[in-house]
């Protein structure tokens, strides 16, 4: 059971209705055999752009982040169910990711082109396609190779 994160934006409505809608979204996960690990309220916010959903233009909304574990085939059903819900403006389900551990390669990237790995590989590929050239100063009065 992999972990997922659902970011749900509910439309602007009274507090009691927000609670019932949130319960509905959570129960959808439970009914499909998943379980919730964490539920965060990201707050009531003005949306960065107007969203046209279910026949209304939404300018504000309340964002919730639900971290849950479920079988992977459930994600499709959840997306479908949340998409039908009139009170949900936008819902997205992403894979829950741990903080990345990247080894910084900026030092190699700031080298001059001749020392960069990608450029060296590119030069090697370019050299591969070229036809081999023979020196013409063989001492013979004809070209010994096929032209």
């Amino acid at each position, binding site marked *: 059971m992999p972990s997922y994160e659902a970011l749900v*934006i509910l439309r602007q409505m009274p507090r009691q209705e927000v609670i019932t809608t949130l319960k509905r979204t959570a129960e959808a996960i439970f009914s499909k055999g998943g379980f919730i690990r964490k539920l965060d309220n*990201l707050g009531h916010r003005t949306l960065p752009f107007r969203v046209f959903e279910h026949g209304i233009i939404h300018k504000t909304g309340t964002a919730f982040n639900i971290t849950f574990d479920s079988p992977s085939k459930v994600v499709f059903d959840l997306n479908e169910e949340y998409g039908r819900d009139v009170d949900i*403006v936008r819902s997205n389900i992403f894979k829950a990711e741990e903080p*990345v551990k990247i080894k*910084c390669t900026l030092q190699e990237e700031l080298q001059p082109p001749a020392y960069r790995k990608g450029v060296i590989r590119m030069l090697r590929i370019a050299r591969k396609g070229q036809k081999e050239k023979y020196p013409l100063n063989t001492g013979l009065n004809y070209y010994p190779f096929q032209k």
Partner: protein
Amino acid sequence: MFLRTFLRPIIMHQNRREFLRFSSSVAEASSSESTESSIDESDLPVRMENPFRKERVQCVLCKHQISPDYKNVKLLSQFQSPFTGRIYGRHITGLCKKMQRKVEQEIVKAQKSVLMGTVTKDVQFFKDPKLFDPEKPIRPHKY
């Protein structure tokens, strides 16, 4: 003062010549051995790492071990143009390839889930500290 500084080498030189004369007269046979044994070990060159080697360059996010996340809109909007809302390229942000890719992915995720504008930057982030100067890119670009 002048005399002392300039006469000292000469005096030292004379002393050395006397010393050499003396040593050669006393022990001619063991002269080669004595010079070898008289090498002071502490004066020999020592193997050490290059003290002038520069520190490894790292990008801002790798240096402070920050992992970009789509919920952290305040961080992500620092890589957005205030005029067009577009994501700045690697030649401006100064991030390494992998980090830049990660930042771009997270911004797209945030834009999909209506946390962040696609063609606008949130006004409340306009006065955030600047991580880089778009006017001075690391590599030149055609604009």
